[in-house]
């Protein structure tokens, strides 16, 4: 097979996989958004911890899959993770 064609097909397969992953992450996000509201509506005492925790998962899912930080240099992965950890700890400590 021609090298260019092989490379293009490799990329196409990779992109199809990415699109499937995007759909899975989107479904996950919708479920997590609904769960957060359900926890808030139930109003149990530690709901805020769960809601903040779910926000961390949502944030990391969007930044990793949609923004594609998963393909970026480790520094950008660290910056994103550290940021959301500060957010989570800030809420837990200050609440």
């Amino acid at each position, binding site marked *: 097979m021609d090298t260019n064609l092989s490379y293009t097909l490799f990329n196409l397969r990779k992109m199809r996989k990415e699109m499937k992953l995007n759909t899975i992450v989107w479904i996950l996000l919708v479920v997590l958004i609904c769960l957060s509201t359900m926890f808030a509506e139930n109003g149990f005492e530690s709901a805020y911890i769960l809601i903040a925790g779910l926000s961390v998962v949502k944030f990391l899912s969007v930044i990793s899959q949609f923004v594609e930080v998963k393909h*970026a240099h480790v520094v950008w992965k660290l910056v994103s993770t550290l940021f959301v950890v500060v957010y989570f700890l800030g809420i837990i400590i200050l609440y």
Partner: protein
Amino acid sequence: MKGKNIKAEVGNIYYPPGGILMWFIIILELFTFLGAALVFVVYRKDMLQEFTESKAILNPILGTVNTIVLITSGYFMALSVNKLREDNLNKSALFMLIGLVLGIAFLGVKGMEYYHKIELGIGFNYNTFFTFYWLMTGFHFVHVLFGIVLLAYMYLAIKKGKYNSQELFDVEASATYWHMCDLIWILIFPILYLI
């Protein structure tokens, strides 16, 4: 070679997705909203009754639906970039348009929410909770509005064939900006509406 530019940027510290300048903006914006969110939590502790009563005025179900609308818009934006990398310009433009319409829908719902608040006489100076509410959601609203202008331009440019798998940096940067709006909303929505 189609798609070669994607591989070239993978893992390069100077080329985060959307470009390093866009990332400086993102970091600046995220930390601004982080600061506001944490100050909000501190004030909430001191004025618990006022914050609890004010939160009850907000509609969390409407907020949840609007969050899903914005996240879905971001999803279509990601699909649009993927389709552009495949040189499928028609699909890329279509997904961009869906993302754009959902973004407008988000602002429409937000506008209705604002109108309802104003009708009730709940303005910027109503109380501390609503000062935060107007500041945080208003600032986010402006970001989304700017994003919509950006997406509209990108949609027209893709339709005209200005971008393709070799020339897509602007589209990637716009997508990153749009996802930043998602990220900010993910942080402020639970603080204002749920917790």
